[in-house]
């Protein structure tokens, strides 16, 4: 029963992240749009690595690609890479305090954005560089509230 509940909570928050990423917003918000899916995905990879791992992240990426009509596999690849990094080092990252976690995740989000930029470049859609850098900063700043919010959900519904 616990597994089912854990999965439903995780899938629910991931769907929430996808919806937040594709809802229409004014242009000033669009430029610094936080990386909601990596934020929420990273949290679950850290807190419940048995439920949310590399293949789950990959699958989530495919769903996101279908919802955004981006090249199938783009976000799947980027999410699997960061899920792998977190899977390897989740025990170390967990022991860090929030500030250090923000720095670590900054690096991880930079890798994610670099992969997206790279795939966009291959599929012949290069753009200006600043809009790739800004979401990293915004997402890192959003990590503490996301972490605390998801932790309270996790404790309340005992997801592990």
């Amino acid at each position, binding site marked *: 029963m616990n597994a089912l509940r854990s999965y439903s909570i995780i899938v629910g928050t991931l769907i929430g992240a996808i919806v937040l990423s594709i809802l*229409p917003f004014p242009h000033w918000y*669009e430029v610094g749009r936080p990386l909601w899916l990596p934020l929420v995905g990273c949290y679950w990879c850290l807190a419940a690595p048995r439920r949310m791992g590399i293949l789950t992240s990959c699958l989530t990426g495919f769903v996101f690609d279908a919802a955004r009509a981006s090249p199938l596999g783009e976000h799947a690849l980027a999410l699997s890479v960061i*899920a*792998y990094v977190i899977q390897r080092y989740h025990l170390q990252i967990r022991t860090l305090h929030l500030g250090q976690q923000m720095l670590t995740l900054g690096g991880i989000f930079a890798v994610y954005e670099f992969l997206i930029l790279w795939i966009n470049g291959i599929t012949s859609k290069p*753009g200006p560089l600043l809009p790739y850098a800004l979401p990293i900063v915004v997402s890192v700043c959003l990590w503490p509230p996301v972490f605390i919010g998801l932790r309270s959900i996790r404790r309340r519904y005992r997801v592990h």
Partner: protein
Amino acid sequence: MRLRPFRRRSERSLFHHQSYPELRFAIAVVVSLALLILRHGTPLGSSLAQVAVETGGAVEQPVSNALQFLGSIGPALHTRAHLLHTNAALRQRILRLRASLAAEEPLVFQNRRLKALLGRIQSIHQPFRMVRVLRIDLDPYRQEVVIDGGRKAGILSGDAVIDAQGLVGQVGSVTAHLARVLLITDPSEMVPVEVAATGLLTFSIGTGIPTRLRLPYLPNDTRVRVGQLLITSGLGGHYAYGFPVAVITHVTLRPNRSFARVYARPLAAISEDRELLVLIRKHPPQAHPAPGKASRKIQRGPGR
């Protein structure tokens, strides 16, 4: 003796935790890279992409319908006096527009005659379909809107899309009931344009910023000036001739470079548009057939 960790059945995950993460990582990377590489050219890749687009569209429609319902609550609560007031204002506007239209009627005839003399085809009077905008995507690397008309409404990939002010873009992927419009400000979009005042032909390229187009191929002795109007040149046959596209906002001559730096502002109010017009092509050009189909056609050819 080694002890195996005891686990309850309910705590086991779908993919066993003790297995190598490297293996799962390799599977994930191979699958996503394979799909990315297969994306173009192969029938499997394009059919998978089509399935993904159709599924995405099927999910998108109820979501955008719900959003639209939320958005329609506001207008439903307007007072009768407010509606009467706007009605009167709109009536006045129609009168004013009709008057100015009547004044320009002779000019239109004259223009048409001159155009015929110049040998240009006047094809603005194309059939069109009015569509609503469901969603706007103004990412720096993806400038798109989703519209509520698809194959069922006769919309095909490649149709030009305009609004009341100017060119908006062209239709990209199409599902049964939805279509994505690639805006002219998308970094991958190139529009053949003409400076209306001088007839100079060039291209505009999107920048990823909704209020800016780039004209990268104008030499440093260009006579383009700020404020000049750009219209579609009709070259390449993709967009018909004569739609207003943008106004030049910025010209810097750079003698040390090959080309001047020229920017323009699109006339279409892309981020504010609710309704758009899709120009339906009368004779849709033959789409490039998939390689499999083409070979089959060739084989069948002599038999007929």
